């Protein structure tokens, strides 16, 4: 209970003074995984018999992450592969249990319900997800109709004519011709499959839609149509979005706010336009610099080479970006920078104020 109270107070600190409570409130969320294979069960048992420490090396996949999403807001989540984006999303969508911390949706604390039981929870339908490659995430033996109908049947208990009506409504909303509903995924184009993936998620009328690189597999001409569809659906259905992507160009167009994640931690957060036009964290700057642009600047000044630090039991006093950071001074390996508020931005860098305008 004390943990809950602590986390609650910090959640209040982290949320910007809200006129009404945020839709999604994530506070001090942690997810750790034991590193498999380093120490076998027998060795662990032997150690325990001897009374020695049974500490297992842990991957700190998500480490002390706090943020909120307001109703109707689109929040982008960017970061390189392996930074913990997907783990964070899986904890938020309650496919994984957090190690510690709070996930609160519309006032209800979801983190108290184990992931296994949440599958049949009435609130399951309030958080839905659109996966990266609709070709891989739709059962190849389901028709488009069956794919969209499945969550409606399980979560809304619909059947018969009511079910058909709802599936057709979702297909119409997503611009999927009804004639295609009897087709299997392999008979659909990439754009049509993306529409099925979206229709399946919005059919149960979620409050929060988590989109994991929904257009990564699509050509630009199709991507445009899907992005515009998502924008329209958001207003029509009154949803909030968490948009995971590493295409900064797309995030800039779609998102109100953006969270930049590096090695399990949020290193920068703020209004998307501002973050991209004037990044304060050196990692964000490297990310923005590395993104190719149609017009303008040549090879970028900041190049991020090498590999990130190990996520296994990272030193709590060393900045996660130390070693790859072009700045990296002594202070960065003796004191981990906290995520600090600077105007309407949040930055985890000792030198954020020194960034030239």
């Amino acid at each position, binding site marked *: 209970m004390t943990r809950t109270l602590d986390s609650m107070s910090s959640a209040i600190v982290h949320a910007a003074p809200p006129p009404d409570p945020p839709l999604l409130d994530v506070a001090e969320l942690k997810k750790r995984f034991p590193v498999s294979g380093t120490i076998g069960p027998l060795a662990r048992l032997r150690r325990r018999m001897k009374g020695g420490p049974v500490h297992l090396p842990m991957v700190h996949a998500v480490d002390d992450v706090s943020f909120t999403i307001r109703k109707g807001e689109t929040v982008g989540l960017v970061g*390189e*592969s392996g930074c913990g984006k997907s783990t964070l999303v899986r904890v938020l969508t309650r496919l994984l249990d957090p190690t510690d911390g709070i996930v609160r949706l519309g006032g209800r604390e979801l983190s108290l319900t184990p992931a296994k039981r949440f599958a049949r929870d009435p609130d399951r339908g309030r958080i839905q997800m659109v996966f990266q490659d609709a070709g891989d995430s739709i059962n190849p033996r389901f028709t488009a109709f069956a794919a969209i109908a499945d969550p409606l049947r399980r979560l809304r208990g619909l059947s018969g004519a009511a079910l058909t009506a709802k599936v057709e409504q979702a297909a119409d909303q997503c611009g999927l011709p009804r004639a295609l509903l009897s087709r299997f995924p392999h008979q659909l*184009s*990439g754009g049509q499959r993306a529409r099925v993936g979206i229709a399946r998620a919005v059919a149960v009328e979620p409050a929060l839609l988590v989109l994991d690189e929904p257009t990564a597999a699509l*050509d*630009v*001409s*199709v*991507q*445009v*149509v899907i*992005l*515009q569809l998502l*924008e329209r659906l958001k207003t029509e259905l009154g949803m909030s979005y968490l948009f995971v992507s*590493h*295409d*900064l*160009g*797309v995030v*800039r*167009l*779609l998102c109100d706010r953006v969270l930049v994640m590096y090695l399990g931690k949020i290193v920068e957060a703020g209004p998307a336009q501002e973050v991209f036009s004037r990044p304060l964290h050196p990692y964000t700057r*490297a*990310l923005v*610099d*590395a*993104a*190719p*642009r*149609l*017009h303008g600047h*040549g*090879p*970028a000044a900041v*190049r*991020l*080479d*090498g*590999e990130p630090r190990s996520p296994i039991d990272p030193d709590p006093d060393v900045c996660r970006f130390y070693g790859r950071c072009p700045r990296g001074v002594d202070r960065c390996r003796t004191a981990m920078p906290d995520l600090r508020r600077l105007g309407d931005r949040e930055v985890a860098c000792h030198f954020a104020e020194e960034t030239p305008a």
Partner: protein
Amino acid sequence: MTAAPALLVEDLSVAFRTRGGVVQALEHVSFAVQKGETLAIVGESGSGKSVTAYAVMGILDPAGRVTAGRAMLGGLDLLAASADQVAAVRGREIAMIFQNPRTALNPIRTVGKQIADVLLRHANVPRREAPGRAVDLLRAVGITDPARRADAYPFEMSGGMCQRVMIAIALAARPSVLIADEPTTGLDVTTQAVIMDLIGDLARDIGMATIFITHDLALAAQRADRIVVMHAGHVVETAPTAELFARPRHPYTAELIAATPDAAANLSELASIPGALPDLRRSDLPPCRYAERCPRRQTDCDVALPAAPAIPEHVVACWNPLS
């Protein structure tokens, strides 16, 4: 274009036999790349970018057949040469980097051995020296601790590192032409920037011509000297990079640029491209394969494609180009 190009592809046509009929995958594809130049081939999926590369390298799927054209590498026509002749230059004079490095590398051989294989086969390196040279190459592509990494298997490396190994293999014999097929798709933008820098630097060092295939217009804009735009198996426009983005002349090129997220200030400004790629199995395909999607279509478009290039350097396959 006075000097002989490093690679000249002329009038290349490729057809695939499928159960649903013959797919005319490429028709009259022509382009040239000079020594030291980076040429980008851009287009959406299905436009024939990769088929072009595979045809030139002689590694087309057995169902595919080159029906016309030539690909001149120095004095050798790769499309007419015997298998032995092609094998003698492939890897040595012309090399390729594939899209997914993890599947392109041999999973059960260490990366050091895979590089040594190429050195032995194509670079006349004595057997004794090959392992050492492989380590040198790993160092050259920026892999830290190369002596240890040479003993690693591909699965032990990150995607970016596997791509560096692919580059080391492709450049082991210092080829004069490199074809890079989507070399950074699936990599993080930060890694992408480093890999593209690496390819550019190495190409400059050995004066290599690079053909770089991508669907990312912004990446092509940043990295290529000239750009070839493909649509449905046709080259629709060829121009120097700055010229292409400043004054796109083919309607499709203009649409493609307008659909790139980087080009727009907000989402409603992004333009989609109406219609879809035509079915390439059709026997009644119009001469211009973009005609059915084109807002500027006129009667000429249904007769033939314009033959001669309108402006030197900037070639557009359109009767009614944007000015």
